[in-house]
């Protein structure tokens, strides 16, 4: 989910909350990526995800149940770069195993809410940062024991 927040980053300050609708299955905010949307460097150390005009909704009062969802669209580019520091997360009780590395991740995005005449564009990708990022490979569910 993408939050646009004037002032300190806190839920009370957010004025827009962008994400795809929840699927009928209960899957949260997941959409398919077109064939050329994800680029992986030959050595696997950089993932670049780029998508244009993804249909999303703006729910400023999320997670309130009666939060109105206004149709919106989002274009973005996101880059994960491995730091090389190994990471392994595994929980046999939950049938998942992740093996990979820590990463640095940066994002640039453009969102539009046509019905209210609002749009917002981030500064260039290099100016953003995330405090947590990982990349690698995972198996879960029926593939965990395989």
């Amino acid at each position, binding site marked *: *989910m*993408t*939050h*646009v*927040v*004037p002032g300190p*980053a806190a*839920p009370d300050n957010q004025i827009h909350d962008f*994400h*795809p609708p929840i*699927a009928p*299955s*209960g*899957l*949260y905010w*997941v*959409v*398919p*990526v077109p064939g050329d*949307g*994800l680029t*992986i460097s030959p050595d696997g150390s950089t*993932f670049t*995800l780029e998508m244009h005009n*993804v249909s*999303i909704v703006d729910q400023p009062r999320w*997670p309130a149940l009666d939060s109105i969802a206004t149709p919106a669209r989002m274009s*973005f580019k*996101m880059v*994960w770069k491995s730091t090389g520091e190994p990471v392994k*997360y595994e*929980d046999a009780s939950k049938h*998942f195993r*992740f093996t*990979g590395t820590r*990463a640095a*991740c940066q*994002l640039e*995005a453009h969102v539009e809410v046509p019905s209210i005449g609002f*749009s*917002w*564009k*981030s*500064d260039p990708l290099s*100016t*953003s*940062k*995330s*405090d*947590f*990022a*990982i990349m*690698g*490979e*995972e*198996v*879960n*569910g*029926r*593939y965990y024991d395989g």
Partner: protein
Amino acid sequence: MSLLNEHSRHSRRDILKSSAVALLPLAIPSAKSSWQPQQPMTANGGTDPYPIPWLDKNGSHNQPAGPNLEPSHIYHFKGRVARCSTFTGMGSDNQGNRIAFGSPTTDYGVMQGEYWAARAPQQGTLTHI
């Protein structure tokens, strides 16, 4: 009064009305007649991926991002995955106002590989945004 006598008092209009009522069931498609022949088909469920079965603290299939937490958002999956959260950055709206983005729950993820749905392996790339 005999049935014969009663019957003899019916006008031609009454007979036409009765005939129309008698034909009504033929004019309204019944459940049986709406059954159309179909091509042979399977019934294995949709090809959309399954959510992770475990619920988050809010009772939702929304996986938070963080150390020791599962990166994938979909279940029965094997492949590449990347995850991130707690973004900070700046931007501008269409009025020229400088507005920040990001919070601890501003998170994204991408999954590319094989997942199991519709009782068969599926290939795909999906993102949580």
